[in-house]
């Protein structure tokens, strides 16, 4: 068995070199290097998390420093889990997640598949396609609110041109049935290129020799696609889904700019709802409980998903 570079380096380093230089043991030196990171991690991640969990059992309000803080047990959790409006918000978030991921994966993969073919100007097309994801979400949101304007917006005009409908007869961000689709369309427009790039990396990682062997075995293009391309790209696709899922679960700026969560509560996603509870209504304890519930949900779902992803990679 050949020796790795790391193993060779470890063997050639005297075991107590640090001790000879500083008078400290290797373990102590290691702690000195790692300690600042651990302290920082505790200070900015672990402590706030524990503090949030503590606050979630109280009626604390950050804007009411003079009021007594009472321990109210699970009341905040009970209120949240029995609040119909919060379930509607969760449902809106789930719908947004599902539809954006479906559309972005389908379109992103299709674009990657096309771009991966060798044709003149595909680099230029790649650059053009990835432009939207380079823009700020706030700018994109603002830009699309104009496109969606019933009287002056290009989007309504194009829909009207193709369907014969009066452009001012519908308002994408003002109607309950259309507003969720308005944000799905914008998010898809903006982030499909990201999925495309990941898929493109996956497609380009497949060695040509596999396809050449499949050609020798007289496998049809369709069969090559299903038995080679899809399984080889699947881990990349799943990674893209994970990234987009996490990003869209915390989606805030784009939706605030586009619809502000409306009309009514149609597009009020959990992140917007949580912000309103925490920093507009200033119900700190309640919002902490809300944040804990979201954290557990995302952590649980992400853990299951990562396990599935690892299994796919192992195949």
């Amino acid at each position, binding site marked *: 068995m050949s020796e790795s570079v790391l193993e060779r380096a470890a063997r050639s380093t005297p075991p107590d070199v640090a001790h000879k230089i500083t008078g400290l043991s290797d373990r102590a030196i290691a702690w000195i290097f790692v300690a600042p990171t651990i302290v920082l991690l505790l200070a900015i991640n672990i402590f706030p998390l524990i503090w949030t969990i503590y606050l979630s059992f109280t*009626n604390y309000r*950050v*804007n*009411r*420093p*003079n009021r007594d803080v009472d321990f109210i047990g699970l009341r905040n959790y009970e209120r949240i889990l029995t609040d119909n*409006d919060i379930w509607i918000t969760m449902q809106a978030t789930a719908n947004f997640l599902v539809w954006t991921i479906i559309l972005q994966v389908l379109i992103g993969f299709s674009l990657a598949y096309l771009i991966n073919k060798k044709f003149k100007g595909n680099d230029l097309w790649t650059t053009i396609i990835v432009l939207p994801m380079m823009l700020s979400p706030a700018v994109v949101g603002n830009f699309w609110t104009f496109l*969606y*304007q*019933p*009287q002056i917006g290009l989007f309504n005009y194009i829909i009207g041109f193709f369907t014969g409908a009066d452009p*001012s*007869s*519908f*308002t994408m*961000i*003002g*109607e*309950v049935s259309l507003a969720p689709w308005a944000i799905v369309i914008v998010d898809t427009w903006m982030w499909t290129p990201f999925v495309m790039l990941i898929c493109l990396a996956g497609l380009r990682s497949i060695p040509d020799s596999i396809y050449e062997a499949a050609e020798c075995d007289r496998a049809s293009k369709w069969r090559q696609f299903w038995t080679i391309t899809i399984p080889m790209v699947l881990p990349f696709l799943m990674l893209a889904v994970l990234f987009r899922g996490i990003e869209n679960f915390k989606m805030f700026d784009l939706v*605030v700019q586009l*619809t*502000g*969560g*409306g*009309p*009514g*509560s*149609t597009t009020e996603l959990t992140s917007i709802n949580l912000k*309103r509870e925490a*920093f*507009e*209504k*200033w*119900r700190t304890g309640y919002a902490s409980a809300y944040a804990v519930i979201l954290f557990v949900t995302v952590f649980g779902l992400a853990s299951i998903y990562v396990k599935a992803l690892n299994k796919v990679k192992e195949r």
Partner: protein
Amino acid sequence: MQSKFLNSAAILGLTVGSCLFGSAAAKAEDLTLCWAAWDPANALVELSKDFEAKSGHNMSFEFVPWPNFADRMLNELNSGGKLCDLMIGDSQWIGGAAENGHYVKLNDFFEKEGISMDDFIPATVTGYSEWPKNTPNYWALPAYADVVGWTYRKDWFERPELQKEFMEKYGYKLDAPETLEQLKQIGEFFQGREIDGKTVYGAAIYTERGSEGITMGVTNALYNYGFKYEDPNKPYELEGFVNSPEAVAGLEYYKSLYDCCTPPGSSDWYMSEDIDAYKSGQVAMQMNFAFIWPGVEADPNVGGGKSGYFSNPKGPGGHFAQLGGQGISVVSYSSKQDAALEYIKWFAQPEIQQKWWDAGGAPAFRAVVEAPDFAKSQPFAQTFLDSMAIVKDFWAEPAYADLLLAMQSRVHNYVIAEQGTAKEALDSLVKDWDEVFEDEGKK
């Protein structure tokens, strides 16, 4: 010897001079006044130059756009920030600012300086200064009197062909409406009409969901149909008042006004969107706070006599309009409270209040607004007076944000998103508000 004497004299002179200069410099402060970024704030900057000249203090200004104003400034107050020495905060903040110790109580100062609250319009004193309401505990000096009113395209209303058509259709003269029902009919009359080759709409009204917009709009219908915040005889008793049959009718009216008479896409509009729609000739009428009126008059498209003004029309249950405006307070975290109080003393002077009106501000000072020539001083002055006489304000409780956002959500869900009925929306609002008051220990 002589040079020694001269040196000593010079040193003495320098010492005395530096002491005198030093004491003068210690008096001069850099004061920061925080407010919203809007036209009146610019007028105040100009006005404040007089204070700088007279007091020797320097004024800085921190203005935040309206959509972020509450977030930014309440964060500042809640964190005990020292950015603002003077705050022109929204009227709803008074309760929270008083109870949480953000503002300096001004009673002793007013008494010492001879500043009387009787000199200000009573509704603005209650709205901007008092906490608890209707008690002589003052946390602000009324600074900017504002109220929701209406602007209309007088030049369109006066067209003979439209006058004729309207008279034939409705049986009365096309003019500024006196009732909410007339307002809706006029809105319907203009909705989708072609004027000068352009499709126009009835009215721009408040529909904004994120901050306070739709609440500031819908209350102008609710109050006038009979909505009350609570039982007048039993504070915090909401059932049967907030969701009374009259209040339900008021909410249904506002929705019908939105459905019949507003431009497409106006589902999230507040002050600036309404102004834009009006100035660009999209709508015949505009609901907005009175602060925009000087800007309307000055606008080349709609000013110079093309616009008229009317107060919120009466409804079957009364005649009210939503109060806007703010008071000026001294921030308790400021280390320059004495200089800040000097500013308030200067601002409370009758001649400064008059200059404030002349500069485009809206004083709540009675000697200015009740002067014989005030009503004719601007085309909108009479409407301003009429409107200020019928004001009613939203809760100013410390938990006003909870109350406001609950109303925003319930009303927007019904009016714009068409979810449920008006009765269900107001029943849910009662439930939300009851919960807030229970949390506050007030029920």
